[in-house]
């Protein structure tokens, strides 16, 4: 089993009123950057890097980063910079980027170059994930959302070709044209760094991943839906003549440990202000998914999938204590003492059977001190137990068995 650690690197020094007073009461896209204090930002970036550095000592196999734009919920607006720093600061863990939002790049060759440098500086530790980005990423970069999937696929094909085909060559695509593709520096890993794809279960992406043998990382999706999405991947894989195993799947899960259940339940509540933001004010739907961002067919299939979703969902669940209790009760967010957490994780692993476990250890208003304690407890008690479980349940990661 491959275990990686993740946080969205949040910025939380603003109020619910600030959000409500922003254009269309949105915490993303239009929430004014006048609410950002770079002095605090400087502290936070360094603190988050410290936490990742300590995560190597904790024993995580991977340090996972993500990227979002125009939002306090994730300070990783240029994830590759953080990745480059970690490439030099750490020695062992993989640097797992989940992922670079391909459609928003006007120049995917430049991205191929950045990733190749990270791969070399880290001496071959890069896992290069790619995403379509949320609609916010399209807005923030003024990329036409109707071309999102086309650009994702074309940029992907171009990057893979850049990494694997001797240059110079020429690319005349629909969205990208380059006459001399020949970046001199190529990745250390051959044929290229592993590609993993995170998501919330868009059927078209699942099938695309299956066709490419790319592991799919569920971003804390509903348990029931996760199982049916895995079937969809398996069906597409069968059409390509192979049977996927745990190495083809990952599950990102909010998991927070403290010395006692009581403390963990109290501190863990900070997760609720993570990617939903302070106040958990619902985002305008057309910000997250502008017209054309999802194909009409894909939207229908996604809705159909989610018909079977089990509530409560941590993103939509209530902020009151009843809502939080339900989220904890249903294991959508795992909080507790090491003993409790190990027991709860086992229940999930038995159902999802992922070869990759993403431990989203802290977010929102969970502070640095609590995070460091959480990571220490993971080192001493939780990670060793998960590793045993991985062996016992037969959950090889993608570095143990090729996906």
């Amino acid at each position: 089993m491959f275990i990686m650690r993740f946080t969205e690197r949040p910025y939380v020094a603003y109020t619910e009123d600030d959000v409500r007073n922003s254009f269309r009461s949105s915490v993303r896209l239009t929430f004014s950057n006048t609410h950002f204090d770079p002095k605090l930002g400087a502290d936070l970036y360094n603190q988050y890097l410290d936490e990742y550095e300590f995560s190597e000592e904790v024993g995580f196999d991977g340090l996972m980063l993500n990227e979002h734009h125009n939002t306090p919920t994730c300070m990783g607006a240029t994830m590759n910079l953080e990745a480059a720093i970690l490439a030099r600061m750490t020695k062992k863990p993989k640097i797992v980027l989940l992922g670079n939002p391909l459609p928003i790049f006007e120049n995917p060759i430049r991205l191929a170059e950045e990733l190749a440098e990270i791969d070399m500086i880290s001496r071959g530790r890069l896992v290069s994930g790619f995403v379509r980005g949320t609609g916010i990423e399209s807005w923030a970069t003024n990329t036409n959302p109707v071309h999102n999937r086309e650009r994702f696929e074309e940029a992907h094909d171009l990057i893979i070709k850049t990494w694997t085909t001797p240059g110079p060559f020429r690319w005349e695509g629909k969205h990208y044209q380059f006459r001399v593709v020949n970046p001199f520096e190529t990745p250390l890993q051959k044929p290229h760094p592993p590609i993993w794809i995170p998501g919330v279960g868009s059927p078209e992406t699942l099938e695309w991943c299956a066709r490419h043998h790319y592991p799919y990382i569920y971003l804390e999706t509903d348990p029931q839906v996760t199982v049916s999405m895995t079937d969809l991947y398996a069906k597409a894989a069968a059409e390509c003549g192979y049977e996927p195993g745990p190495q083809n799947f990952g599950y990102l899960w909010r998991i927070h440990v403290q010395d006692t259940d009581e403390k963990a339940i109290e501190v863990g509540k900070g997760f609720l202000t993570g990617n939903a933001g302070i106040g958990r004010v619902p985002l305008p739907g057309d910000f997250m998914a502008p017209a054309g961002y999802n194909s009409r067919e894909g939207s229908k299939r996604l809705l159909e999938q989610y018909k079977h979703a089990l509530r409560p969902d941590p993103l939509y669940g209530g902020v009151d204590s009843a809502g939080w209790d339900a989220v904890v009760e249903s294991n959508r967010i795992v909080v507790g003492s090491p003993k409790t957490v190990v027991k709860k994780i086992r229940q999930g692993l038995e159902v999802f059977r992922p070869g990759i476990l993403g431990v989203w250890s802290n977010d929102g208003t969970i502070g640095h001190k609590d995070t460091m304690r959480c990571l220490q407890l993971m080192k001493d008690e939780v990670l060793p137990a998960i590793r045993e479980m991985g062996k016992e349940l037969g959950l090889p990661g993608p570095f143990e068995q090729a996906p």
Partner: protein
Amino acid sequence: MAYERKFVTVGGARIEYFVGGSGAPMVWLHGTEGNLGWLPLHEELARDFTVYVPTHPGFAGSERPPWLETFLDLSRFYLWILQELRLPKAILAGHFIGGWLAAEMAVMSPSTVARLFLIDAAGVRPREGEITDIFLHGSEGTRRLSFVDAKQVADYDLLFGTKSTPEAREAHIINREAVTRYCWKPYMHDPSLPPLLERLRDVPTMLIWGREDRIVPMECGELYRKAIPGAQLQVIDRCGHFPHLEKPAEFWRAASAFLLPNHRRD
């Protein structure tokens, strides 16, 4: 008055249009709301003209050829639609993006256009204000900005009423997607259009604008007027983005003076 819903296949795409009336041909080009069918407005025009109301490719009702991606593609393709409809010279009328479309077609092929009639048209970037980002404001926000007083609008529900049927909701999604495809970037304007407008010196042109249009500011009407030799601009007071719906009487007065200069309507 009788009208028909018909289809014409152009470059492999099936294009829907409504046609009715008699007289010189006029093509009415719809705005971002899509083709709402044969409206009282078209009925009125059909008393003096053969009125064609096509659905733009990619909007609910008409197919989009897979290569058609940009507003310029749309404009070039539309000249082909007119050709297949056997309209070598027609009055082009249009609102918002429909007006922009008419202007693009006119500068590409001035001899195809008998008269140009633009209503609160997009296409020209204002120098001082901005064309409101209807995507960012969303459907509801845009609706609020569209009228000075929605109570003045008889066809309000037709335009912005709750989409009651699944088909109407689907059409709404398709139309939003089409507008996004053609108008996202550069947003609602073509940087090369203004210098080309001078080409329209022999095309009689009228611009009608709501003085309080909060979607396309009146400044754009002024810019069009200055760029097209001989163009007239008629501004309607206490009126927003849809003069033909919000102030139909004033709209008709201005429209008839331009479209029917030789006879008074009863």
